Every structure is written in structure tokens, then in C-alpha cells.
């Protein structure tokens, strides 16, 4: 007897329309939480990514101290460290929602930062040069000439990250799940 039969025979009878509505509500909450995290993550990632494109030694490498650990470790580990680990070491104690937002937001930021860096780096140097030659400053060159071109390169990989993070957000239930079991 496999799992699917168990599901249909035992559980299906208990699944009512009310449960479906509950699940839809829960899905809505997940979606809202994820979207909020993605928004925060995109803003933070944009700032970090821009810093990495500056031609200022040392400063332009600093964001990687934040980016690389977050990009290269599992989200669950980050989540557990923040939610369970931090209160053991310090007096800081995040609620599960705070922990969820911070973890997913920072994790998204790390990925977005690298995409921002790559998108800006993909614009040929001569585009900057012709902007400079016309008298534009760095900021003016970026906002009026480079940004529009880099944004087109940014969108496809960013959408991939967003979708992947939406899937990853199910991991956030780990801290919610544990709490319920602890409470129960």
C-alpha cells in the first residue's frame, strides 16, 4: 500500500471545502510573505550589487562578505541559525515571521546583488565612455544610459530567482511547523 492510497482512503474523507479555503488563505499568506521578502531582497540586492560595480578598491568587495555565505549555504540552515541559533547566543529573539522575512529577504538580496553586478558589467565600456564624453557624471550615465540597458539583461535571471524563492518559501513552514509541534 503506497502513500497515495493512504491519502485517498484515509484523508480524502476529511478534506472539506472549508479546508480548501483554509489552504487558499494559507497560500495567500505565503504569497504575500514571499512577495514582501522579494521586494525587500530586491532593494537590498540592488544596493549591494551597485556597490560591487563601483571602481573603488576594497569597498566594492565588501558586499561579498554578506553575499557569498548566503548564496552558498542552504536556506534552512540560515533560517535555523537565525530563529533557533541567535536566541541561544544573544538576547535577540525574532518572531517566526520576522525570521522568515529576514532570511528570505537577505537570501534573495544575495542572489539579486550578483545579477545586478553581472547586468551592469555586461554593458560595454564604450557606452560609459560615450556618456562621459558627452559630459555625463557617473550617476547621470548610470540612470539615463546604462540602467535601461542593464535592466533588460537583469529581468530574465531575476524572474528565475523569484520563482525559485517562491518555491523555497515552503521551507519557512519548518519554523512554523516546529512551533506547532512544540506547542502541541
Amino acid at each position, binding site marked *: 500500500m503506497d502513500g497515495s492510497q493512504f491519502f485517498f482512503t484515509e484523508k480524502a474523507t476529511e478534506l472539506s471545502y472549508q479546508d480548501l479555503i483554509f489552504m487558499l488563505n494559507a497560500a495567500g499568506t505565503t504569497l504575500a510573505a514571499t512577495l514582501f521578502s522579494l521586494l525587500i531582497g530586491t532593494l537590498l540586492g540592488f544596493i549591494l550589487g551597485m556597490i560591487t560595480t563601483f571602481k573603488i578598491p576594497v569597498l566594492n568587495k565588501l558586499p561579498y562578505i554578506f553575499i557569498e555565505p548566503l548564496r552558498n549555504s542552504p536556506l534552512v540552515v540560515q533560517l535555523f541559525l537565525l530563529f533557533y541559533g541567535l536566541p541561544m547566543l544573544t538576547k535577540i529573539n525574532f518572531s517566526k515571521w520576522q525570521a522568515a522575512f529576514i532570511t528570505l529577504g537577505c537570501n534573495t538580496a544575495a542572489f539579486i546583488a550578483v545579477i545586478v553586478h553581472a547586468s551592469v558589467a555586461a554593458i560595454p565600456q564604450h557606452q560609459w*565612455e*560615450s*556618456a*562621459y*564624453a*558627452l559630459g555625463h557624471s557617473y550617476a547621470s550615465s548610470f540612470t*539615463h544610459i546604462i540602467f*535601461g540597458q542593464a535592466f533588460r539583461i537583469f529581468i530574465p535571471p531575476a524572474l528565475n530567482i523569484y520563482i525559485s524563492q517562491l518555491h523555497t518559501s515552503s521551507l519557512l513552514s519548518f519554523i512554523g511547523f516546529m512551533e506547532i509541534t512544540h506547542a502541541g
Partner: protein
Amino acid sequence: MAVIDIKNVTKKFGDNTVLNNITLELNDEISAILGPSGSGKSTMLRCINGLEPIQQGDILVDGVSVKTRSNLRRIRKTCGMVFQQFNLFPNLDVIQNVTLSPIKILGQKRASAEKHAHSLLEKVGLLEKARHYPAQLSGGQQQRVAIARALAMNPKILLLDEVTSALDPEMTADVLKILESLAGEGTTMIMVTHEISFARRVSKRILFIDQGSIAADMPTDAFFSVDDQRIQKFLQHVG
């Protein structure tokens, strides 16, 4: 006072000395910079508007030094530049390419910037392409837009960096025709070029650069009749 005053300039890329102690004054006239590939012609032009930093010496553009980074924007407003590879902004259409900088940097009103752009596009014969994007234009058309874009900033000096080298002969003729009419209107131009006959026809002064040094600096007529082996050899190769 000279428009561009180059004083003892040395430019290096790593250990490679590209410009070796160059001293030169450029005035309100049309000058052509000639020389074999890799001699430092383009680099000198790029040093003038600060796209390349110099290691020694100083360049004054209209009395303003390129050594101070905060001066560079002022210098670049004085010097318009046209590149070999056109370098139009691909995400903007022709009229936006031409009007962006006058609006954002000179603070012109959109209406007056567009009016000026229309007259410039008419001058380069591309008024009907105003709403096209660079990718929809041929190389020669793109280069003519690039010239209009540089002129839209009302520069005192136009720096032309091998503007026809990426074009076929027919398009080259189109672009040269426009440059010639600009020359006729008294625009100050400093051009790096391989179009020897064009340089001979249009420029008043020839600078011949070889291995990072000025090998000859003389009026155009004198240059083409000078009895110098190196120059004769160069002219034979390119002519």
C-alpha cells in the same frame, strides 16, 4: 591662447609608453592626426577629454586642466567626441540619443532641444529617421547620428576618432561629406584618420605621430611635399 595646450605629456599602459613627452598646442583650426596603427593617435585624443588619465605633464582645454577630476565634465562639454564604433545608445531612438544630453546636462527645455536636434538631423540628412532605433540604421547612418549627438552639446571642439574606419567606402563618403560641410562652417575639429586624401583636403595642419612622439607638425601643404623618409614611406603605404 591655444584651445588645447598639451604640455610634456607622457601616457603609459603599464610598462608600455604610448605617448612619450608630447608638447603641442592646438588652435581654432582643423588639425589631422596621422600615423601608423598603434602610434598613439587615438590615445592622445582620449587623453584630451580625460577618457584616459595621463601619467606625466598636463593638458589644458580652454585653460582647464585634465589633471583635476572635477574639471573633466567641464572639459567634456567643451569637446564633443565621435568614436570609431559610433557608440549610440541602443535603448534610445535617434531623437532621444541627440536630445538626452542637452536636456540632462545643459538643462535645455525638451521642445528647444528637439528643435535643435531636428535641425542637426536635417544637416546630417537623417530627419526622417528621427524615430528609428540605432539597430535599424546602417553604420554610416549611425555615425551621422553620432555626429549630430556630439554637435547637440554645442562643443567648441570636435574630436573625431577614426570616424570612418568601421564604414564601407560609400558610407565613408556620406560621413566625410558632412564633416567637410562642418569644416566649411568653421567648426574646430581634431581628427585622427586614415583618410589621407580627406585630411589633405580639409585640414590646415597635420600632426604625424610615430611611436608615441610627434614626428612632424606642419601645415598640410608642407607635409605632403616634405622630404622625410619616414613620412614618405607612411604615405606610400596608406595612399
